[in-house]
């Protein structure tokens, strides 16, 4: 009995942390002043948020009694592979369209 409550606390903590990180990513998306800065929120915070959530769900289903259930790990692996790729493509599109940047940005994106 004591064992199951311990796992329940762990799962609860993981999904809470995951949701808070996803929320922070979305806040960053809304709040930061230019596109290139907004790109940081979703690629990092949201990806880690979903990762923590998936691990919490994985622990929950693995300890329910019908054996180990690892397949939700695939979502995390997939997101960790695709998030940088889509961020890179969106950054290239934004540079191609020459979106404006905040004034204090140092350095210039090059034109090819």
């Amino acid at each position: 009995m004591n064992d199951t409550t311990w796992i329940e606390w762990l799962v609860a903590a993981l999904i809470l942390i995951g949701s808070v990180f996803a929320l922070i990513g979305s806040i960053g998306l809304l709040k930061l002043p230019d596109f290139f800065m907004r790109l940081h929120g979703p690629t990092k915070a949201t990806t880690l948020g979903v990762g923590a959530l998936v691990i919490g769900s994985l622990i929950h289903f693995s300890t329910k009694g019908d054996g180990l259930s690892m397949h939700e790990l695939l979502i995390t692996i997939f997101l960790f592979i695709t998030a940088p790729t889509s961020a890179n493509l969106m950054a290239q599109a934004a540079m191609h369209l020459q979106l404006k940047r905040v004034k204090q940005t140092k350095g210039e994106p090059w034109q090819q």
Partner: protein
Amino acid sequence: MMRPRAFLPHPWLSLFLLIVWQLIMNDLGAGTLIMGAVTAWLIPLMTNPFWPNPPTLHKPLVLFRFTCTVLLDIVTANIEVAKLILGPSRVLRPAFVEYPLELTNDFAISVLASTVSLTPGTVSSDISDDRKTLLIHGLDVADAQELIDNIKQRYENPLKEVFECSTT
């Protein structure tokens, strides 16, 4: 007797495919294992023409250690980025940094770019046509040279060790 390279062109890709197959099926029976092994053997064989210069893995142990560092860094970097996002956005110092690449293998470069995107407050935005420079956008860069050095010794050097011969 076929050469091992022709029989099993990408052993690591095959292993990865087998693991993914097992994860999808969520079952460890003999049937799924055999089906997975056949799939993991056939897919790299059929997609071989799309991989013109496959990376060679020299030191799997270093790669394993590298993965562990990156996973830890992702967690710490995310806490930092979360603080930056929740703090006032006026004090942020965003910057574009040109990062000189030493890696030459395409796959190794894409691994480095993904790592840079996932870790400390930076997103890799573009690569120059001659594949020698990576354009990185940082959310809060105090010193560009320090960022470059940090990435170089933390991520690029292990990757160079893993994917490229150090005989030169």
